[in-house]
């Protein structure tokens, strides 16, 4: 009898407890959404607005990524340089890298000359084909 009284007489603390459960459900759903929908991309320190494009070639994951900034400067590894110097630096940089998986992240406003100069430098370093990264757009 005493036990019945306790259960019926004290519903208030239990209700307080239960209001947090929908919150946890929603937070778990959000967590699972971000886990599944997002790709853990490596964040780069180079701010680049990729050009928009429509073609998406099947390409394996790229091992080496070079950046061309909007002002035309080129990132080779950790170093920033004029594109005309990149050819010389790339010979050393690409020595122990996979030459078939090189990609270029070029800003859409970067001079095409810088990108082409960098690609010429890559040819000099033994790279036959590069992948220009674009964003899906019109």
């Amino acid at each position, binding site marked *: 009898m005493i036990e019945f009284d306790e259960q019926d007489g004290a519903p208030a603390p239990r209700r307080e407890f239960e209001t947090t*459960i929908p919150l946890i459900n929603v937070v778990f759903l959000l967590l699972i959404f971000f886990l599944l929908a997002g790709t853990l991309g490596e964040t780069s320190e180079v701010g680049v607005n990729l050009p928009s494009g429509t073609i998406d070639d099947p*390409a394996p994951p790229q091992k080496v990524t070079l950046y061309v900034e909007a002002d035309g400067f080129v990132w080779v590894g950790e170093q920033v340089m004029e594109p005309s110097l990149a050819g010389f630096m790339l010979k050393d940089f690409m020595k122990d890298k996979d030459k078939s998986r090189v990609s270029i992240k070029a*800003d859409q406003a970067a001079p095409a000359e810088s990108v082409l100069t960098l690609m010429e430098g890559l040819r000099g370093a033994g790279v036959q084909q590069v992948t220009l990264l674009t964003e899906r757009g019109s």
Partner: protein
Amino acid sequence: MADAFDVPVKRRRMMSLTPLIDVVFQLLIFFMLTTSFLQTQALSVVTPAADQKELPEDARVVEIWLMGDGSLRVDGDPVSSAGLADAVRARIGERTDMTVTILAERDSRTQQLVRAVEAAREAGATNVGTARVERLGK
């Protein structure tokens, strides 16, 4: 005996959910900040030779000119950016083995270069070359 077992079970139900919520929130914020939803596309381009004498010079070449003022020309005739693929297709017709060479003037931008490469590919060209030039003749 049954009553004696019931007591600890009831106590366990009182366990606080707050640490769990804290951890889940931490995870949620971590995934929210680290995921990137930017979907990049890949565009494969053959690297150009530094020596422009390697450019094919025979008649089976269509040239796309990227002018410094942002306009586009195909073999010297001005075309709109939307009509570029059609203009290239009209030049090469069925002969998709023809080489399309993209000549970038000094002030042309990467976005133009990407658009020209995609237009040439849309037109069916299998050989797409690139080169940079100082100034294109009229």
